[in-house]
């Protein structure tokens, strides 16, 4: 089966590279969403694209390009830790804003709430 192995070795860098590029594009889309969304409570939703699919695809691409299994292990560890810590961070931010009494933008017409800070 040397031909199959040759094909796999030829395809491997392309698959890894394309996955990395897709991950980077998703991170870019997430950043655009963070800038475009109207208020504090909606922005973590855009950031969660970067936290989940962009990270997964990017790290998967890097794992395919990785020269050794040790690197793959480290990438898996990074992936696990990002998936465990990023929702905790988002939750802490949203909870702090809610506890501080920030009023969210609600509804399809995106009404601006009256926050006391804006009046002052």
């Amino acid at each position, binding site marked *: 089966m040397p031909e199959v192995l040759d094909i796999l070795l030829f395809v491997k860098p392309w698959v890894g590279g394309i996955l990395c590029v897709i991950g980077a594009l*998703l991170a870019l*889309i*997430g950043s*655009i*969403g963070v800038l*475009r*969304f*109207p*208020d504090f*409570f*909606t922005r*973590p*939703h*855009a950031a*969660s*694209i970067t*936290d*989940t*699919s962009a990270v*997964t695809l990017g790290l998967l691409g890097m794992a395919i390009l990785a020269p050794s299994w*040790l690197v793959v*292990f*480290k990438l898996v*560890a990074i992936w696990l830790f990002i*998936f*465990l810590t*990023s*929702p*905790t961070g*988002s*939750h802490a931010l*949203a*909870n702090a804003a*809610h506890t501080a009494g920030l009023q*969210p*933008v*609600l*509804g*399809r017409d*995106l009404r601006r709430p009256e926050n006391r800070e804006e009046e002052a």
Partner: protein
Amino acid sequence: MGYFAGLIFVLAALWLGLSGIYKPLLLILAGISILISVVLASRLETVDREGSPYGRTIPILSYWAWLQVEIFKANWPVIKACVSANLNINPAFVRVKTRCESDLAKTIFANSITLTPGTVTVEVEGDKLLIHALFEEAATPASFDEMDHRSYRAADGKRKEELVA
């Protein structure tokens, strides 16, 4: 004791995977650092069902696999909302009741909701969760039902038998 064994095993695997150099000196240092970590963890009294949940590895891993698929499915509407010309979103607060009892199950459920793009857990009070959703029509209480059930099964399933044993 099982909790200590699980913690020591995971710490050892992490060290071996991250180091990659297997000389006697480094392995001795690994043993010492694992020992210090375990002693510190036991002094913090975190070596319990929450701090070392490795006895439930298989249910949690199968839940994790299911969650990955859900996360990828939930990504599409948010990606479309990010790049569409007019901002077609309908943010709202939703209240959801959970059947999860233990703190571990509640944490898994709330963190799964936050991980899924389009929903963020804002507050947890008892068995009620306050969720901020990007699309009100997609975030009905019924849509969280399966996730609730699965995180309950992953963390709390057969828990009563464990408590008896």
